[in-house]
């Protein structure tokens, strides 16, 4: 039997993003449902038991579970219903502008959920060894860093006795310390780039504190072992090419991959939401509305964030936009926003004339003196200096309404100072 439900707003995903969006829609008279396939609220935050969350959003340094509880409490209002342990499997637009979701839970079976507006907060998934194509056998003991984090922190199981971590993303760095603190030896972190891809603070407190070597511009060229991993072979890179004559062996029984995250947009594709190849997430306007009217997005499903605080801020903005959309007061005229020099992407990709705008960027360069500039129709209208920029850290700025006073194209670029 299929159960039918109907709400004004459906939020898919109860991570930092979904909960922050729901905390905003809760302030309106509209009825919201928040759906997550996990039994607990908080998404990835549940397994991030380390501290370092919330300094900006809650003005306090919290662990992941503490941050999750705080945002969940903000969303727990009478007009918000939670459906946990419920996976959304299908999603479609209805002819009358609403949406219909098919969801499955062990408790309720199949549900058909209708809503007039949607918030996409499905987060992201990890890239794995398959995406990298490292040669070698397929022994046990190979994990993504996030899967190992869940195993250790939620289920309380050790992934192995001695580990090599491939990739220096934040999850891998955090896991290096977690493993060490759990009695697992961490032999090395191997990174192909000349600089670490995680935050500097994590290199300091997760590697340097324990004397764990970080091999920059090195690549794992082989994973060996029959039933269980026995060792990896690592080679230095010269212009991206492994120097096999200088390769060396590191004995270990576990290999963790921390090589990046990909926004989880299967459901967005079903809706026909237009995606941005530079982010892997939806193309959105200044209201965080996607190309499908009534569908909004925020958090890691939109672009990969290193700071949960930015996730919550962005999703809260989207939550407010959803209320305006349902009120019929959303301004949706949209001018293009793009990037040129030294920036990988900008979110959002459209601006509304005469409204202030919040923009997030991913820099392509490492620099300790750079200026972010904005040009409207070829005229320099705004700039700001940064004393540190690096690909590991997202930049986020606000442009005042007075600047965006005419329609046209807004282009951002990052200039390195001599």
């Amino acid at each position, binding site marked *: 039997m299929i159960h039918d439900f109907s709400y004004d707003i459906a939020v898919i995903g109860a991570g930092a993003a979904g909960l922050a969006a729901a905390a905003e829609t809760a302030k309106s008279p509209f009825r919201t449902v928040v759906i997550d396939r996990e*039994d*607990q609220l908080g998404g990835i935050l549940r397994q991030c*038991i*380390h*501290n*370092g969350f919330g*300094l900006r959003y809650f003005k306090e*340094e919290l*662990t*992941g*579970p*503490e941050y*999750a*509880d705080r945002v969940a409490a903000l969303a727990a209002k009478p007009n918000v219903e939670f459906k946990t342990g419920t996976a959304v499997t299908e999603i479609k637009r209805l002819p009358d502008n609403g949406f219909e979701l098919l969801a499955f839970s062990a408790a309720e079976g199949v549900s058909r959920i209708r809503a007039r507006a949607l918030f996409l907060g499905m987060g992201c998934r990890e890239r794995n060894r398959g995406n990298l194509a490292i040669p070698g056998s397929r022994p046990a003991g190979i994990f993504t860093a996030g899967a190992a984090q869940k195993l250790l*922190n*939620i*289920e*309380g199981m050790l992934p192995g006795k001695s580990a090599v971590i491939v990739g220096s993303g934040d999850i891998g760095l955090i896991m290096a310390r977690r493993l060490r*603190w*759990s009695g697992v030896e961490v032999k090395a972190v191997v990174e192909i780039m000349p600089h670490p891809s995680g*935050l*500097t*603070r994590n290199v*300091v*407190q997760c590697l340097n*504190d324990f004397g764990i070597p970080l091999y920059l511009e090195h690549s794992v060229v082989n994973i060996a072992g029959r039933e269980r991993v026995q060792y990896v072979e690592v080679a230095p890179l010269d212009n991206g090419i492994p120097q096999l004559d200088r390769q060396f062996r590191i004995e270990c029984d576990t290999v963790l991959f921390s090589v990046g995250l990909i926004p989880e947009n299967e459901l967005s594709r079903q809706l026909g939401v237009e995606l941005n190849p530079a982010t892997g997430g939806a193309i959105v306007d200044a209201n965080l509305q996607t190309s499908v009217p009534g569908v909004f997005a925020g958090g890691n499903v939109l672009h990969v964030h*290193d*700071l949960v605080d930015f996730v919550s801020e962005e999703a809260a903005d989207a939550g407010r936009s959803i209320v305006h959309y349902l009120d019929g007061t959303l301004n949706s005229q949209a001018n293009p926003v793009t990037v040129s020099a030294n920036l990988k992407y900008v979110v959002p990709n459209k601006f509304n004339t005469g409204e202030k705008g919040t923009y997030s960027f991913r820099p392509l360069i490492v620099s300790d003196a750079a200026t972010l500039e904005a040009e409207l129709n070829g005229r320099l209208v705004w700039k700001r200096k940064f004393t*540190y920029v690096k690909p590991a*850290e997202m930049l986020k700025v606000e442009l005042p309404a007075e600047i965006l006073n005419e329609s046209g194209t807004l282009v951002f670029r990052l200039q390195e100072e001599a």
Partner: protein
Amino acid sequence: MEKKLICINCPIGCHLTAERSNDSDAWSVTGNRCPRGELYARNELTDPRRVVTATVRCNSELMPRLPVRSSEPLPKRYIDALLNRLYDMEVKIPVKRGEVLIANVENTGIDVIFSCDCGK
């Protein structure tokens, strides 16, 4: 004497320079964007500290382990012993976020507290 450090108190990761003349033991700190960086540098050079996070076994049906943390950064020299103590424990639910698991670790005035609620 001059020492270079990176502040780990927030994700900005300010590059700090701490200087001190040979006849004084007061460090003067530059490069910090907020007062926490100055404090961090002083502590790091005299008595380095870290927030400790871990999990403890418990008797809940839902959560095999519960996340815990030190209420403040703990002097590094106490961390290993504290972790061993935590890994040997088994706690009884219910517990509340913020509730104290171990009070006053090594007389530092720092507690170990639960990072989440667990009722069943």
